[in-house]
């Protein structure tokens, strides 16, 4: 299965995302923001970073990149898309996911191993988790505060679109502790924390068993492959 990762000017975690796909057993394909070519991929990851220096609004300029025309078209046709951090910001900027992301309420950049609860496993990116499972993956952002107006929040909760919720610590003032969302079909998922940084023992978050042994993020990429095998 071919999974594309789009590199934008200022992307940081594109190579980590490619590596995560490879470790999960997929075929990673590097894509470039300036082209109109998805190179025949079956799914897409929009990676983290600071595209265009976060100028204008986080993800806003990248959301208007040439390749995004193809990304949005493919997403509307049902291609699985995962937006991580800056990629999540792009997904809300394009309107593929509801709400918005603003500066953390405390005003600081935050970097920590973050506990999340998986609230929805009915997506290609989360079907390998158990409903309600708690996972720990790194979080690192300055503008990760999820907001939406009352009506949108009601719809998000009512339609069970919350996919990940912060547990114990709400690191950025996100409403309803929302860390990640899916769209109505479940194919499009966005989250602020970084699953691609928790895919290989020795390089992940600490666990009760051993330092840096956390690989909870790998399941997200394995879920995608499992979904396709089953289809």
């Amino acid at each position: 299965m071919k999974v594309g990762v789009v590199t934008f000017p200022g992307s940081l975690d594109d190579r980590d995302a490619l590596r995560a796909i490879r470790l999960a057993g997929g075929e990673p394909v590097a894509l470039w923001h300036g082209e109109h070519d998805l190179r025949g991929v079956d799914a897409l990851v929009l990676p983290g970073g600071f595209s265009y220096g976060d100028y204008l609004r986080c993800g806003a300029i990248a959301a208007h990149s040439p390749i995004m025309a193809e990304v949005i078209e493919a997403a509307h046709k049902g291609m699985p898309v995962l937006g991580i951090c800056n990629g999540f910001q792009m997904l809300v900027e394009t309107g593929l996911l509801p709400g918005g992301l603003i500066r953390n309420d405390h005003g600081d950049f935050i970097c920590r191993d973050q506990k999340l609860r998986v609230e929805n496993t009915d997506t290609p990116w989360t079907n390998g988790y158990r409903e309600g499972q708690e996972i720990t993956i790194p979080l690192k952002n300055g503008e990760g505060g999820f907001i939406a107006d009352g009506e949108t929040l009601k719809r998000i909760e009512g339609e069970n679109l919350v996919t990940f919720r912060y547990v114990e610590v709400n690191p950025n003032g996100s409403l309803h502790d929302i860390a990640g969302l899916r769209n109505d079909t479940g194919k499009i998922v966005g989250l602020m924390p970084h699953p691609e940084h928790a895919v290989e023992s020795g390089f992940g978050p600490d666990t009760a068993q051993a330092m840096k042994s956390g690989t909870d993020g790998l399941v997200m990429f394995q879920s995608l492959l499992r979904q396709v095998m089953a289809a």
Partner: protein
Amino acid sequence: MAIIVIEVMPKKELLDPAGKAVLGAFHRQGMSDFREVRIGKRFELHVEGDVTDAHREKAKTLAEDLLSNGVIEDIVDIRVEDSPA
């Protein structure tokens, strides 16, 4: 020569952490006259020659599609000003 000025502000009901940080600086300087600070953006679109209706129309479209995000921000003004020399 004229410019089109577009002003965008964070929505009133949303917390503006950057504005809050500036208000904190006021307080540390002993300045308590102001209750709130909100930080927005001013865009200046420069054109060759005069601003036409077509320019205004395009500026409005850009303001809505790219320069602001209606989920978190409001366009508070779009106007034509004399270009600063």
